[in-house]
């Protein structure tokens, strides 16, 4: 454990001082502050919406939640994708391993340090957002809101840590940094974008819906065929299927869990069910901040657990691989 802490301390200094982290931090910081401003505008325009709307309310296309859904993976992966293979290539790994520490101290220390940096990023960003919003709105979050914000922070850290562990797994599996970058980007594009297209196509294929046509449709007809129970059932079925396919993506799970915690009850996530459309905006009529935290947690507990399990699996896989790998210097 002492070895882990030494590695962690050094890695933390490295990460916090790295250009990569500073650029990411500056970008996220800027966008978050803007989204807090937008969120505050949203609240002023929609009376009855709650303080938490600063995270999802948007006027010009994006909010903090969509930002995290789509760019969170990049933050996590960026801190992990070259953690191991960079040191392997440069030869510093073999020098470190020649010291009297256990091999797992290195990977533990690295993950610990990167997770701490991610937490710092999330906590400080959300803190600043609240500050900006309070100064615009003139009122702050209630105690219930604060607990929801805390939970949302934790969820976001878990989500980012999942991507971090995935990145570290890639950096353990591959010898070349270029390969692990490519893997990271592919997985990100798949989870953030492609999965929705796949879900749409599969839904279309597996649950075919023939649109009613012919004499049934027309003015003056007392029964609207679009409202027939059969058709509605089919749409419902397709919707459920698509949602389940989208749940393969951790981004979607995070989206669902996050919207429930922030009080956007009723699935579909931020952006009124349209997962793919960045900045779909939240439906003001649903954004009432209703429901309490325990209720929300009970609803999205499976999603949160899935993220945690995913993170642990990635960590364990890279841990095992790293311990078994031969350390040949220079390659």
């Amino acid at each position, binding site marked *: 454990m002492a070895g882990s802490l030494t590695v962690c301390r*050094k890695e933390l200094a490295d990460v916090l001082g*790295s250009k990569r982290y500073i650029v990411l931090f500056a970008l996220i910081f800027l966008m978050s502050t803007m989204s807090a401003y937008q969120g505050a505008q949203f609240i002023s325009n929609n009376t009855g919406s709650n303080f938490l709307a600063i995270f999802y309310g948007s006027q010009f296309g994006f909010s903090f939640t969509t930002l995290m859904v789509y760019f969170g993976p990049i933050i996590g992966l960026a801190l992990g994708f070259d953690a191991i293979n960079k040191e392997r290539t*440069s030869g*510093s790994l*073999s020098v470190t391993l*020649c*010291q*009297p*520490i256990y091999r797992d101290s290195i990977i533990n220390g690295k993950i610990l340090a990167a997770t701490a940096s991610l937490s710092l990023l999330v906590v400080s960003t959300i803190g600043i957002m609240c500050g900006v919003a309070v100064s615009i709105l003139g009122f702050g979050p209630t105690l219930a809101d604060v607990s929801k914000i805390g939970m949302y922070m934790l969820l976001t850290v878990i989500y980012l840590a999942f991507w971090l562990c995935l990145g570290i797994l890639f950096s353990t599996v591959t010898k070349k940094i270029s390969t692990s970058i490519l893997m990271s980007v592919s997985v990100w594009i798949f989870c953030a974008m492609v999965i929705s297209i796949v879900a749409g196509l599969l839904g279309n294929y597996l649950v075919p819906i023939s649109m009613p046509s012919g004499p049934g449709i027309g003015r003056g007809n007392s029964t609207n065929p679009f409202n027939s129970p059969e058709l509605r059932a089919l749409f419902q079925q397709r919707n459920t299927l698509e949602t389940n396919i989208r749940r393969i993506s951790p981004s979607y799970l995070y989206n669902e869990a996050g919207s429930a915690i922030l009080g956007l009850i009723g699935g579909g996530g931020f952006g009124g069910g349209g997962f793919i459309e960045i900045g779909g905006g939240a439906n003001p009529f649903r954004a009432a901040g209703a429901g309490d935290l325990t209720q929300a947690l009970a609803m999205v507990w499976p999603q949160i657990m899935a993220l945690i399990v995913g993170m642990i699996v990635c960590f364990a896989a890279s841990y095992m691989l790293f311990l078994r790998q031969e350390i040949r210097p220079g390659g």
Partner: protein
Amino acid sequence: MSKPIIQTQELTKNYKEVKALDHLDLTVFEGEIFGYLGPNGAGKTTTLLALMGLTVPTSGTATVGGYDIIKDSRKIRQIAGMLPEGAGFYEDLTARQNLNYICQLNDIPKLEMEKSIKELLDAVDLRNRADMKVEKFSRGMKQRLGIAEVLVKNPKIAFFDEPTIGLDPQGTKEIRDLLIRLNKEENLTIFLSSHLLYEVQQTCQRVGIIRAGKLIVADTIENLSNRIAGKDKVVIEFELSKVDADLIKDIEGIDGVISVDQNERKLYVHMREDKSGDVSQMIIKHGATILLMKPKERSLEDIFIEYYKEGA
């Protein structure tokens, strides 16, 4: 002779299909500089990794400084340092910060740390570059920093894997001198793996030659040389003002001379016993002048090639 500090018994390591180490038996004694010779891929690096406990042998045992390489590998890394081949550093950190980190990993108390880092930077001649980022270092400077990282824990044994590869002659000499000095002053046992024969000959007291994972021979350079010499005990090199066929024929006729090799105006006379007096007289009788006369030394290269031929 002093007591053994590294001992391996039947050490074997298989990578998928390759036998990197094949029942290796090796002994290194305390306080010596041991040269570990072999071409690329003979198993030198694997031996070092196994001795530092960084790779688990398929079978066999070994101890380093009395510790078992499997059970006590962490303790070995406390008393032994290694400069691996292609060693790298944290390029964003300065030399001092790199050394600091290594000290922390070794649990060296802070007070002691600052003092020994200062001394070491002096010893490896990096005191003026201590606060420069390693990315700006030349290859030789990095190599010297690597040596400092090995020594900072004040080890009993130091393993060096090709420490002078890719260095210019000046850098090579500096590192060689540093190693010899450390061995003398600190009684540091040095295990030097290299395929540069000249370097090993200049530095090491004893050498081991490894081929396809097996130790062919291990002894002092002098003993190895004598052992190869075998049948023709004495070889003397003469450099003459002129050489002709008659002279060679007459020298070959002298009792005790086995053969004469000619290389322009140099003659290498192989003899059963030292007959250089008779040979000199014969040369003078032929009207030639002796410009130089000396016993021929066998270089490590001859020894190496000879043993490789034998082993094949």
